């Protein structure tokens, strides 16, 4: 009987074997390749890269395969790998204004310079199961989108928000001092109040579901901030690094990002006139839901800076930033399944003492 709590070593080895078996599934079905995951489950890969804070579709695909499709587990795998990587420098800020745009929409203007570009979006699909996808090759990909006669190389696409900025209707973005060191939430413990750099980093790797619920709560009156989607853009941007020995910028990578700039009503305060304010969201890959939710939460968390009363959960910086990380959350929630019998025994002893003291039956 005492054996029940022994034999941990054997049990772990067997658990790992069973896990590997379950991951592989039916041997009659061909094994998934990383190319299939990276090429056909791209939005899963994007989420793993965004919340894993590591831009590498190959690694993300491997993590998804190893995690049997559990994206939180895959994010954890990527994070644990990422933390071992050396740092050799900080890139220049990416310029999303110079993005090679694949999708770009603004909800605040009917048309904008550079045009609205729908791109590959689920937005106007009818959510009807497409049974022709059930069999491979059942449906040839509809003719690849060929550039039509009237489609022209898109012209420059200034950020929509900058158009408002010119009129002074929106708070202007104060450029940061170039030499100020940027916070790094992966290397230092978060302190409160957190700077906006630390907050945006925290949100960018934060759990999409958590941010979605918080963003949603602001729309339902818990910290309402009257948002408009000023602009959402998706596409490729260059990552540039200035190696110290060269002194000029080199493009070291091209990454896909989704950026969302929310425009929010603001009635003004003692120190600022009525104007529009901003909320900002940015994440790796095609992660539009995440970027929009992030922008709503970013704006909600700016309440103190804007002299608004912080009353709702989404406006509570400690609450939001301390609970946004799904690797931390998933670990701590699930650690409850580890043995706690010593603490439980202490509670049993205490409870029996208490009940004996009050004369209730034991």
């Amino acid at each position, binding site marked *: *009987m*005492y*054996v*029940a*709590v*022994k*034999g*941990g*070593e054997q*049990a*772990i080895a067997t658990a790992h074997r069973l896990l590997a078996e379950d991951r592989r599934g039916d041997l009659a079905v061909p094994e998934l390749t990383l190319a299939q995951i990276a090429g056909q489950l791209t939005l899963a890969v994007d989420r793993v890269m965004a919340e894993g804070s590591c831009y590498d579709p190959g690694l993300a695909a491997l993590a998804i395969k190893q995690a049997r499709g559990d994206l939180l587990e895959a994010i*954890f795998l990527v*994070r*644990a790998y*990422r*933390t*071992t990587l*050396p740092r050799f420098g900080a890139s220049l800020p990416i310029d999303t204004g110079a993005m090679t745009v694949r999708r770009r929409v603004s909800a605040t203007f009917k048309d904008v310079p550079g045009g609205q570009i729908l791109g590959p979006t689920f937005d106007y699909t009818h959510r009807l199961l497409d049974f022709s996808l059930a069999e491979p090759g059942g449906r040839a990909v509809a003719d690849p989108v060929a550039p039509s006669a009237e489609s022209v190389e898109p012209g420059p696409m200034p950020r929509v928000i900058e158009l408002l900025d010119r009129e002074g209707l929106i708070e202007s973005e104060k450029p940061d001092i170039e030499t100020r060191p940027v916070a790094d939430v*992966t*290397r*230092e*413990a*978060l*302190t*409160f*109040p957190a700077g906006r750099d630390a907050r945006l980093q925290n949100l960018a790797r934060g759990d999409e579901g958590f941010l979605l619920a918080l963003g949603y709560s602001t729309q339902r009156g818990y910290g309402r901030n009257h948002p408009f989607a000023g602009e959402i853009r998706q596409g490729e941007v260059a990552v540039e690094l200035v190696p110290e020995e060269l002194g000029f910028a080199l493009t070291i990578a091209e990454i896909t990002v989704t950026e969302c700039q929310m425009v929010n009503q603001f009635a003004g305060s003692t120190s600022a006139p009525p104007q529009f304010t901003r909320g900002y969201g940015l994440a790796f890959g095609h992660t539009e839901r995440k970027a929009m939710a992030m922008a709503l939460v970013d704006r909600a968390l700016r309440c103190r800076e804007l002299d608004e009363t912080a009353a709702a959960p989404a406006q509570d910086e*400690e609450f939001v930033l*301390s609970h946004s990380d799904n*690797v*931390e959350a*998933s*670990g*701590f*929630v*699930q*650690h*409850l399944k*580890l*043995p*706690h*019998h*010593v*603490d439980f*025994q*202490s*509670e*049993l*002893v*205490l409870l029996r*003492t*208490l009940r004996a*003291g009050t004369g209730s039956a034991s």
Partner: protein
Amino acid sequence: MSDYNFAFLDEQTKRMIRRAILKAVAIPGYQVPFGSREMPLSYGWGTGGVQVTASVIGPDDVLKVIDQGADDTTNAVSIRQFFVRTTGVRTTTATDEASLIQTRHRIPETPLAPGQIVVFQVPIPEPLRWLEPRETETRTMHALAEYGLMWVRLYEDITRHGHVETAYDYPVVVNGRYLMRPSPIPKFDNPKLDRCPALLLFGAGREKRIYAVPPHTPVRSLDFDDYPFTIESWDRPCALCGARGIFLDEIIVDDKGGRLFVCSDTDHCARRRPARGVSSA
């Protein structure tokens, strides 16, 4: 494991953690924030303890890992395997042979000795957390040694129930200054903290805090003159080795209320049994 550094962490990270440990030793009981890393095991499984152990372990160390007092519980096995794999150090189950002991929820029954280091895995480092959820507030309370809230809580427990209703993670004051959580050890183990000859290090990975009790530091469990601190006791000895005055696990052996009380510290129990002529289970 040539792909990874000795003890997994890179040397820069180890230095950062060692600096935090030195600060923690210099200010006993004070929670030092540190740049906790993602580890290859899950948060809640002992990532803080693992990082502390990885930063102080050397090739000559002899490591013991326990969970719930036992060397062979799954998580203890897993963490021991992790260090064997990443460091190749010698491991032991004998408390007095170990130079470094990582533990979750217990302090061994065998008295600790000078030169030993015990690393505790900490889920929630802040002793005031259930009374005040905000870190900004609790840090100020520590700075001012403003612990009235905790005293009131203990007082209210006694007036309502006649006892303090905390059985584990029972709050202590370290060196007469900082209120500290001893990690979820049963209060039975609290007296072992007081003037302990070993160095006690506490690592909270998810919460990114390290704290310490240096050797021979006074550690007092909070109590009142007329309601002194007490520890758990059992009215029977260990069913396997016959030891008394140690912490017992209660094992349910059938569905008719049958129970067996045995040592929680498996090393302590196993080493007593041959002496009694009882074969090991």
